């Protein structure tokens, strides 16, 4: 059964049930009111007659019955029946079964062709006679019947209307979902540029559509990134591999054992460099995919930065720069991956030493603002012009391609990926002069599942 029909039937059924509840309530109330008013009248009449009997005896009662009949009210029911079942006075064509108290029963009055529904009270008198009094409930029941039939019609109409609403609703929902499904279908057929139409109403469907579009944008960006990465990986591995290949070839050709040893050492160095590129690329993709979050723990970032500053101090000094670290006076607890952040910071410091040593001073600083921790590495080197900063953080985006010996241009890309792993960002800025790189990290990244 198609969903549209199911939704229509469900809506129809729900409308029917809610109407049934309302109509049932109306019916019960009106019915009870009508019956209660007849009950009251009949009780009063019975009380009057029994009072007459108590004060005046049987003869007075018969007189009272005759008087009542004289009014010729067609709805009056009254009879006195003796112990043998004979009607002493009254207008009953036949006596109903004897049972004391109030009830409704079908009775036939004398001189009338058909029996009627009536409310009666039966009272047992001391001499085993039965006093029956009551009213034919004609008009009350007639109102009820009209009411019942109109309620029944209302119910049917309500059910039909519900079904109609259901059909319209189902059609609307089906249409909105259909739009999304069409887009999904086209995407499955490899057209990632498709987007779900979003109206200006801002309803749940629009929100869903917008979310799906955002997801598609992200997937598209990731695929583009992946394409760029594989392209550049294939391209950038070409030169180290060819250097490796020629070194190996030359080592096989040469007769000089000293030269051969040198060449073989170069083979090992080149393959190590290749492996380093591959592991860094792997580390980047893993961080971007949020693996490694299970190894997050609390640690003092100020202490880690101090450790790294101490580690790189001699290297900076050797290159003619002074490494300065302003250690904060209090600990800076951060929930993160200590090893990976150590690597990210060391990449920034190594970059600063590599490209900014000529400027003299390299400054490392950490600080906290609200729930955000920032680690800054600033140098006084040439810096990176604004229009080339995006390029610098890209994988293999080394700006000076002539420096092939150190680094493969992956340092900033890895630092950025590690920042992303921590829900943070890598910011490149002008240190006036020089480069200012900042890792901005939340103290406690949002838990993902």
């Amino acid at each position: 059964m198609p969903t549209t029909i199911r939704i229509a039937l469900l809506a129809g059924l729900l409308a029917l049930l809610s109407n049934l509840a309302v109509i049932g309530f109306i019916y019960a109330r009106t019915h009870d009111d009508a019956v209660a008013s007849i009950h009251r009248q009949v009780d009063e009449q019975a009380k009057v007659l029994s009072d007459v009997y108590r004060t005046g005896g049987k003869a007075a009662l018969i007189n009272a019955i005759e008087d009542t009949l004289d009014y010729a009210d067609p709805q009056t029911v009254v009879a006195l029946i003796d112990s043998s079942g004979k009607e002493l006075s009254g207008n009953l064509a036949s006596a109903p079964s004897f049972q004391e108290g109030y009830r409704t029963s079908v009775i036939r009055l004398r001189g009338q062709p058909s029996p009627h529904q009536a409310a009666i009270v039966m009272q047992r008198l001391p001499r085993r006679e039965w006093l029956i009094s009551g009213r034919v409930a004609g008009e009350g029941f007639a109102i009820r019947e009209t009411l019942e039939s109109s309620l029944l019609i209302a119910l049917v109409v309500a059910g039909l209307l519900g079904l109609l609403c259901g059909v319209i609703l189902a059609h609307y929902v089906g249409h909105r979902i259909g739009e999304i499904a069409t887009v999904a279908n086209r995407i499955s057929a490899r057209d990632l540029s498709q987007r779900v139409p979003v109206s200006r109403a801002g309803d749940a469907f629009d929100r869903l559509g917008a979310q799906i579009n955002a997801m598609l944008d992200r997937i598209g960006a990731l695929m583009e990134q992946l394409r760029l990465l594989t392209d550049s990986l294939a391209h950038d591995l070409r030169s180290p591999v060819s250097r490796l290949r020629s070194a190996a070839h030359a080592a096989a050709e040469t007769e000089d054992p000293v030269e051969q040893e040198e060449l073989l050492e170069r083979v090992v160095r080149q393959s190590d460099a290749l492996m380093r590129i591959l592991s860094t690329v792997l580390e980047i993709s893993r961080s971007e995919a949020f693996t490694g979050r299970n190894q997050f723990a609390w640690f003092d970032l100020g202490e880690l930065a101090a450790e790294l500053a101490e580690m790189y101090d001699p290297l900076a000094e050797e290159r003619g720069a002074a490494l300065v670290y302003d250690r904060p006076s209090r600990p800076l607890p951060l929930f993160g991956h200590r090893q990976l952040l150590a690597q990210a910071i060391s990449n920034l410091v190594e970059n600063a030493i590599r490209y900014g040593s000529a400027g003299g001073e390299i400054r490392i600083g950490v600080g906290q603002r609200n729930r955000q921790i920032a680690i800054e590495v600033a140098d006084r080197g040439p810096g990176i012009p604004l229009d080339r900063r995006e390029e610098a953080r890209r994988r293999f985006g080394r700006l000076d391609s002539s420096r092939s010996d150190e680094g493969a241009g992956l340092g900033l890309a890895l630092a950025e990926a590690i920042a992303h792993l921590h829900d943070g960002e890598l910011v490149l800025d002008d240190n006036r002069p020089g480069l200012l790189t900042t890792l901005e990290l939340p103290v406690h990244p949002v838990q993902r599942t």
Partner: protein
Amino acid sequence: MGRKILLVEDDRETASYLAKGLTQEGHSVEQATNGQDGLFRATDGSFDLVILDRMLPVLDGLSVLKALRAAHIDTPVLILSALASVGDRIDGLECGSDDYLVKPFSFAELLARVNALLRRREARVDPAERRLMVGDLEIDPLSRSVKRAGKKLDLKPREYLLLEYFARNEGRVVTRTMLLEQVWDYHFDPGTNVIDVHVSRLRRKLDEGFDKPLLHTVRGAGYMLAA
């Protein structure tokens, strides 16, 4: 002095290359080619060292390691793995291995680590000596004071840790990665010669003004502290 080493490695080429090299170093090497067989052999506890590949048929390396540790067999274990990310290394070490070496590696690197692990085994049997002596160098681990030929050397805390690690591996090659992992506890590969700079600083304080150098560079492998 030869030792008993269990090599659990499914790649025949790697296994025979390693077995050959270790045998040449005077060790006796037993081989297993899957995790289950490796675990079975390792459980008799007679080995001085287990070299365990991480990705093995039947039972993977980390499961073998966990089973060994659960059975209270504390033979040193060196994990070999092609899983090179920082997270993988930490996982490997947290499973109870004593060292973690990423493929591809040089034989010199493997040998240096094997020797360091065997040495640790020795030290465990023979309780740590109060003082470490290398030639005329004297290290007191309790007071962290260092003297050479009776003259006190003024070392920074990290330089002291570096020297103590060298001294505990006296006469054995120590690689740059080992220093980074053991002295700094970092498990990434720095792109610079930052470790060499630290070693040469230490060397200046240690050997300058003395005829006989103690801290040697071993070409293609690393460094060695020896009298």
